[in-house]
């Protein structure tokens, strides 16, 4: 009897070490952040005042917040969408590659393994309207390039392209791994039945990859929602707030205006937003896995 009880408790005992690490480093800070969001907290000198939900009301009544939400969703939607389409196409191409596989795959990985700050600095030079290579190439073809990161009309486009470039190797890698794990039989059968390559791709490859696709979309959405480094170095959220995502707003509120209460409130909102999106993804993912 005692031994059965002990056996039942083994799984819980085994996860204890992991919990001992996760709780202080992950779970406690999240709850503490939620707690802080109910305070008016000027960081230095420390001054705490319990304000109930006032921070939330203030944030929701702030047009800058809604503009940041719009920019964040736009940025995330476009980045994840294009990364997925391009990533899937490139993964498909790499899967059929016959020669120099290792070299190509190593090259593809470069943007992902490089330090984001370095990537951002390189792209900042590339996007420079006067001295940057992008406009120099355009000038060679007689085209006058725009102001890119210095122009509110093109700044979001510029940071979006940079983020797509940075994150696409992850999409390619995961989808490529998925493609390589697909069984040969459905393809052989389709060929016998005379299916075209396009039919094979959309009617066999994509359905078989669905679970992997959901996972990739989930990860990329979470990564992009909280993207910070590239935007910060390229534009700092400007010009005129045109690239100020929620992450940038959180950082500026905390480290430029020393407003810990509002910053915590914004962090809670982005956490809830991420959880909601993850929840939708997981629902589809589990449905897919059940099928």
């Amino acid at each position, binding site marked *: 009897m005692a031994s059965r009880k002990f056996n039942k408790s083994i799984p819980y005992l085994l996860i204890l070490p992991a919990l001992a690490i996760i709780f202080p480093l992950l779970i406690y800070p999240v709850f503490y952040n939620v707690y802080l969001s109910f305070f008016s907290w000027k*960081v*230095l000198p420390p001054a705490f005042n319990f304000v109930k939900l006032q921070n939330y009301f203030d944030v929701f009544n702030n047009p800058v917040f809604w503009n940041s939400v719009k920019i964040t969703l736009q940025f995330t939607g476009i980045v994840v969408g294009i990364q997925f389409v391009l990533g899937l196409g490139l993964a498909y191409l790499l899967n059929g590659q016959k020669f120099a596989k290792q070299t190509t795959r190593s090259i593809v990985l470069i943007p992902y393994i490089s330090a984001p700050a370095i990537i951002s600095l390189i792209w900042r030079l590339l996007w420079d*309207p006067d001295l940057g290579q992008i406009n120099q190439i355009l000038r060679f073809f007689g085209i*006058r390039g725009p*102001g890119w990161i*210095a122009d509110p009309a093109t700044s979001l486009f510029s940071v979006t392209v940079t983020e797509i470039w940075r994150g696409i190797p992850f999409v390619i890698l995961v989808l490529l791994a998925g493609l390589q794990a697909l069984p040969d039989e459905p393809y052989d059968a389709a060929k016998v039945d005379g299916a075209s390559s396009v039919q094979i791709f959309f009617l066999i490859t994509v359905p078989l990859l669905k679970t992997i696709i959901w996972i990739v979309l989930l990860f990329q959405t979470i990564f992009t929602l909280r993207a910070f480094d590239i935007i910060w170095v390229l*534009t*700092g959220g*400007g010009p005129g707030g*045109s690239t100020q995502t929620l992450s940038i707003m959180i950082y500026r509120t905390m480290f430029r205006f020393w407003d810990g209460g509002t910053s915590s409130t914004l962090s809670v909102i982005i956490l809830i937003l991420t959880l909601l999106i993850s929840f939708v993804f997981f629902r589809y993912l589990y449905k897919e896995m059940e099928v």
Partner: protein
Amino acid sequence: MFGFSKSKWCTKKTAFFLTVMIIFLVLTPLASATKIQWLAHPVHFAVTGDGELLKQFQEKTGIEVVPVLYGVDVIMEKAMMEMLSGSSTFDVISLSNTTWRNDLGSDVFLELDSRISEIEDYDDYVPGLIEAFRAADGKLVALPIRSGAAMLHYREDLYNEYGLAVPVTIDEFVSNAQALTKDTTGDGVVDVYGYAFMGKEGSQLIDDFESWLYPHGGAFFDGDKVVVNNEAGVEAAALLTDLLNVYKVVPAGTLSYTSSEVKTAMQEGLAAMTTLWWQYNIDWNKPELSKIAGNARMAKLPQKPDKGLGYGHMGCWAVFIDKNCKEVDAAWEFIKFISSAEAQKYMVARGNGPTRLSSFQSEEFINAVGPEAAQIIADVYAVGKMPSPSPIFPEARETVARELHQAFTGAKTPKQAMDDAASAIQKLIQ
């Protein structure tokens, strides 16, 4: 039990080795130098001869100074974490007058008034610079180590080529900027712009804004009142907006420019004038670094007649001792040394901005910048003032930067932007 036989384990050699190790481990901490960590900007390290001065200090005192180098913004973040957590990672912290808030006084930093009598030549500090680091509680909390003043930098070769005179008024400056903006190759693309400023939203934009605010006779505050939206403030905001959108005399990338892009624009010959710190002029005249070597000159900032205060943006870095510092005496010895006349002489020879009156007359300073520039710098320092310390100055600067961008992008008029900035700053005060 462990597979070792007693004879193998307890050899004479092993015993000797263990004894030496124990003696080494016990004596090493006793023999090692007192170590302090200095949170500083890379330029602070560079002007110490990349650490040469710190080595000299160590030889003299036995105190090892370990510099931890970050950019301006990150330094304040690290300092804030240090103060919030109450840790003592950094013994000495460098902060500039634009990032330090004067409500961070003797509750977070060591007060220095009780020790200042140890500095015999205290009167040699530039008075405005040292007094700028007196906290709201009246206590002195830092010693100045590096100063700066914005100057008008201009290309002498282009001025000569187009027959221009160095501008004294703001109108003359605008007219020169227009004359200098040229398509030199005739391909329809401007190759040289009249002016470049740090337009990226953030603190550096305000450095350039201040370089035009004071020459218009403006200020951020008048006592407790926010006056950044008065006539002078609006004119300064309108000037930058017009240079960008109306006269189009600044590079297209201006709204993403920090000091490094402006520096590059000057040294690549893309811009003909700028208003950065005077220190930049030294590098622009080095042939190995710059395409305009020998042609970068500096002058006092143009002023609005009868209104201008005679100077532009002025700033200073100072060294603070963390109140939780474990090595207070060593930290004090270090800040006394690094701000001393002797160390300053060494540093001004490497482009540091003087914080000692004696430095201005020193051979090292005159050789570093040239006699003409040395005189111009000394004249500007003689009339220049640092902005009055305030508990919300860093936030006020960020607020103005945010609103200036609204004016630059056409979302607001300069007047609306400055009014909105003033009301947001007023809220911060409340």
